[in-house]
């Protein structure tokens, strides 16, 4: 009798713990979701200022030259890296999605290689773009090479 009572208590504790974890997880997700949506809204309101981050690159960073300029292999490798790490937010053809801006826009296409490299390295954390310094420097330059190979498109090309 005593043993069954102890077992019952144990099962009840496991049940309570499971419900607790569930409630905790749901609330956590709710908070995260609310925050993420809030960031999305801010982004939509200030779409123009998303590109303003390009202007924040320091002079020294802007002047850096791309060691792979015109290198076809680097361009192809950059395309592969773009597909793996960037396409989810910027779209498979870099035309932008709800999560990330178009990289075909003039603001991006006219930016110097150094500026693009700086943005890749530092991200735009407050607008949801993570830092990508975890990719080795040559790989970041390969992505820049790929981005520069994309044609300049007008605002009408936006998806």
């Amino acid at each position, binding site marked *: 009798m005593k043993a069954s009572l102890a077992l019952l208590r144990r099962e009840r504790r*496991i049940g309570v713990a499971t419900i607790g974890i569930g409630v905790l997880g749901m609330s956590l997700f709710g908070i995260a979701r609310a925050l993420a949506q809030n960031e999305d809204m801010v982004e939509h309101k200030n779409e123009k200022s998303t590109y303003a981050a390009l202007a924040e690159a320091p002079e020294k960073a802007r002047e850096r030259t791309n060691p792979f300029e015109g290198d076809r292999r680097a361009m192809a490798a950059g395309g592969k890296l773009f597909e793996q790490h960037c396409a989810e937010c910027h779209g498979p053809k870099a035309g932008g999605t709800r*999560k990330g801006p178009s990289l075909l826009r003039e603001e991006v296409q006219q930016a110097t290689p150094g500026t693009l490299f700086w943005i890749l390295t530092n991200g735009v954390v407050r607008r949801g773009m993570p830092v990508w310094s975890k990719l080795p420097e040559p790989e970041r330059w390969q992505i820049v090479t790929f981005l520069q190979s994309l044609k300049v498109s007008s605002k009408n090309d936006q998806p």
Partner: protein
Amino acid sequence: MVAYVIPGSIRQKLPGLFFPVLIFSLLLSRPCLLLAQESPYIVTYDHYLEEPGSLEVEYFSTFGTQRDGNDFHAFWTELEYGATAWWTTELYLDGQTTFHDSTVFTGFRWENRFRLLQREHLVNPVFYIEYEQISGADKIRKEVEGHDVESDYAASNAVLRKQRDHELETKLLLSSTFKGWNVAVNPIVTKNFLPSEPWEFAYAIGASRPLALKARPNRCNFCRENFVAGVEMYGGLGDAQSAGLHDTSHYLAPVVAWNLPSDWTLRVSSGFGLNDNSHRLLLHWGLSREFSGFGEIVGRFFGGRP
């Protein structure tokens, strides 16, 4: 009620079955996948957070040798979600099997990491805070704190489970990446909620580098760019009542991660005990897969924007 329907022998194995079932259910619900560029560390953290909206599902195992007791296989599942570009939150579910003893669920942990600076600097700080509710039988050995020593784990699961730990763990994750090398240093401070328990201190340090810094144009499984190798060292530094290296354990572990183009990451770490208080071997391995756009999918499920 379940307790009376399922025979005792199967019930005992349930905690062990829980993790594979959970992982496979998540893997079968296949949203968009994203190639992760994961670091090889098991214990040390660098400053990189989960991409916003992505969920990383991870399964890890620890095989540990035990003098004056039975060797063990501890396992844990991590559900790591990128809430924003500066905040990652993570839920851990832990369990273990001690050979010739039993399999038990040992508790859960809820971890949060906050990026403190907007941009990259020479040293990048991330604040880490974790609440853990685990039993004394928890053997995942993901961190070694205070005066944790091998003999603490020699008792049977029945005895170890009686001890309940409610702890708050904080870390300052300092990490720097230069010329492909990542160096990370994590000072750790832990407080058990029992007033009688002192603050405990620990450390974890690591260095790693991809085997190739340039990517190849084609997708490949075995090219060097997919491998990241390194080494990490971790151990306890005593507690507020007796800080220092006496009665502490320390480990040195070569680590390697294999980031596959098929979206899986495999990590292996072989931790060798550096003194008599340490387990001779702590072999960690883990498998993970990243699901991007998970936040949006769940948001839509709950009636969010299409």
